């Protein structure tokens, strides 16, 4: 019966073709509008972060460091909700590494208490803040002044290694919090504010260079986010790419939803860290903000499906949604997927609630922590289940192969059909 139903749906779609095409185009516009708003919110909160960092550098104090940390935490709320745009949109995916690359070998950047060079990464102990000149992959590098260009062009992915992360949110997070030395016990990184004090009060050396690095990283973050806001603007490349072909655009939405939920969040960021019992595997490992990173990833996925995003100023961007398209094709598939998305948010909220009450993500990873394992696996299982709902949505919208960015296999399949 399922095949027959599919046939009727497809035949019906041909008759009602133009109305359906309009609905599909409208849902894509909503998707692009949410992207533009969420990246604009990421930008405005990053600008506040940059100001707070400028204050910290000019007048270092415990309060100034705390204010910068709070600005960083706020900036993560809108940014994490944009992660759903990453995997379906090559323009975003190519850019993303500059702002949110993870995990990182932070010994590249500054002093560390553990970690350092490994078989996999010879530059894991470079410590550029303490090292004005060094040799990198056979090239002499002059790092006497730490500039955005040095970070972006020389240090980022140095030696063709993705663990060499020199820019973006996590580099800034490390420079504000420092390494979390508490393992799977309570507490985040405890970098002293005096790491930015100038003159005699400076701790851990090179405070001037550390400040220079932090400001360069904040400058770059703002510049990179400006690019992405523009890419989703009225004439932006990313908006054009996703709206050029409605079926390909819808596939991009669903690819982003499924890839973030399943392979990336449930797999790499949640299950792997749990199975390794390794606090270094938590996404925001310096600040212990991982519960929010996961929660707002989940919320971003739900936003694009329901076609509604609440901005950082409280206003709402909404419009015709993918959910409505799926409901028109098969109400049951839509209802199941909405229920799955809600169940995921509930599972991620449980993690967030426990973490905010003091049972942080890294404590959940401890060997033998049954409660922590149950919390994290609850999130993993919900994300895996919702991904099956996303696959169903792909089928009822008759979009073909969602996981392939190229169209080769679609072309091949079409050739076989002919």
């Amino acid at each position, binding site marked *: 019966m*399922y*095949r027959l139903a*599919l*046939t009727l*749906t*497809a*035949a019906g779609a*041909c008759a009602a073709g133009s109305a359906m095409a309009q609905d599909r185009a409208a849902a894509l516009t909503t998707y692009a509008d949410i992207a533009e708003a969420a990246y604009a919110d990421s930008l405005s909160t990053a600008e506040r972060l940059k100001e707070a960092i400028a204050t910290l550098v000019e007048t270092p104090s415990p309060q100034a460091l705390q204010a910068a940390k709070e600005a960083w935490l706020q900036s993560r709320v809108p940014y994490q909700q944009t992660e759903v745009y990453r*995997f379906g949109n090559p323009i975003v995916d190519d850019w993303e590494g500059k702002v949110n690359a993870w*995990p990182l070998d932070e010994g590249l950047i500054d002093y560390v208490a553990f970690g350092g060079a*490994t*078989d*996999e990464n010879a530059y894991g102990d470079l410590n550029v803040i303490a090292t004005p000149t060094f040799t990198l992959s056979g090239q002499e590098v002059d790092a006497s002044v730490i500039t955005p260009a040095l970070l972006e062009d020389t240090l980022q992915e140095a*030696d*063709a290694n993705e*663990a060499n992360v020199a820019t973006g949110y996590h580099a800034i997070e490390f420079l504000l919090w420092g390494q979390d030395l508490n393992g799977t016990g309570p507490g985040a990184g405890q970098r002293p504010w005096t790491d930015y004090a100038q003159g005699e009060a400076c701790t851990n050396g090179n405070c001037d260079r550390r400040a220079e690095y932090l400001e360069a990283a904040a400058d770059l973050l703002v510049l990179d986010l400006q690019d992405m806001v523009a890419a989703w603007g009225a004439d932006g490349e990313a908006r054009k790419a996703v709206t050029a072909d409605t079926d390909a655009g819808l596939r991009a939405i669903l*690819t982003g939803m*499924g*890839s*973030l939920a*399943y*392979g*990336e*969040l449930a*797999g*790499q960021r949640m*299950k*792997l860290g*749990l*199975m*390794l*019992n*390794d606090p*270094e595997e938590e996404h925001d490992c310096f600040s212990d903000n991982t519960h929010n990173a996961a929660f707002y990833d989940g919320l971003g996925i739900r936003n694009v499906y329901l076609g509604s995003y609440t901005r950082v100023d409280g206003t709402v961007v909404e419009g015709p949604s993918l959910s409505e398209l799926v409901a028109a094709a098969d109400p049951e598939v839509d209802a199941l997927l909405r229920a799955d998305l809600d169940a995921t948010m509930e599972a991620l909220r449980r993690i967030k609630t426990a973490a905010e009450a003091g049972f942080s993500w890294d404590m959940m990873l401890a*060997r*033998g922590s049954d409660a922590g394992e149950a919390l994290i*696996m609850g999130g993993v299982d919900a994300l*895996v289940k919702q*991904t*099956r709902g*996303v*696959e*169903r949505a*792909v*089928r009822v919208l*008759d979009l*073909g*192969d*969602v*996981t*392939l960015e190229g169209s*080769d*296999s679609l072309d*091949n*399949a*079409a*050739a*076989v*059909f*002919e």
Partner: protein
Amino acid sequence: MKHLAAALVLCCATPAVAGVDEVIDTHILPGMDAFAEASAKLSDTAASDCTAEAVRPAYQSAFDAWMGVSHLTIGPLEQGGRLLAIAFWPDAKGAGARTLGQMIATEDPAVDSPEAFADVSVAARGFFALDRLLYEDPYEAGSYTCKLVQAVAADLSRMAGEVDAEWHDSFAETLRTAGEPGNDRFLTRDEAVQALFTLLGTGLEVDHSQRLGRPMGTFERPRPERAEARRSGRSLRNVVLSLQALRRMADALADQPIPQTDEAFANALDAADFDDPVFAGAADPMGRFKLEALQQAIDTASRAVDGELGAQLGVTAGFNSLDGD
């Protein structure tokens, strides 16, 4: 019109029963039985003599059996992260060396209790822990490392037995009853077909982008030290065994001849017929050429699976765990 044509083909040319039963009966269940049996033998061997010389042959046989099922990552292998605990690779941050080193240095008492060992980091469990322990630093009978080898082998055998039992007791039935009332895992028959089809494509992607792609690195920066299970000399063997298993699965899943797919698998296996067991040649132009040719042949097999078998079954691949970074 393309939609309509596609729908008609789906409706009329595809029998309702693709080879789900055949995949279960001829591929999955026998493969899981063999894996459980070989793992039990490994555990028994280690229990009676845990020295590296004694354990290595049983380890190699168990790893061979694992390669027959390592792509079957739904259901029992997905539950509780067992896949990672059985085969934690790739290990991009060197967690294996670090965690095993800590356990040995502190003589972690988890080796004395199967329950406690089941909670140990996956970096110190499964085949890749044994790859290091049996082939890296020599150890004495009666040493802590020797006990650790026994604990890893016993833990592996326990998991293999559980996975095999769960396939027989429940998950095979869940697949067979796809679309029937009460089955909330697979709401339609197509969902079961798609799930199995997705495993095929994912298996080929693992061979292409991880087993070959990681040691190949880039032309400027090859990474032969990243080859899978290189200490025990299994990198190429694993690709060959994986391709053989995936070919068997494709044939079982198809309900009509799939000549393009068969040919592509045969070509890939031919391309894998060279003498470089741990991909050391990734770093030199001649050796690299062979790896690239093999990678390309696997890519061709992926396209054949998508274009020919996928079209025949009326499904496309779903999401897999490699999506993302």
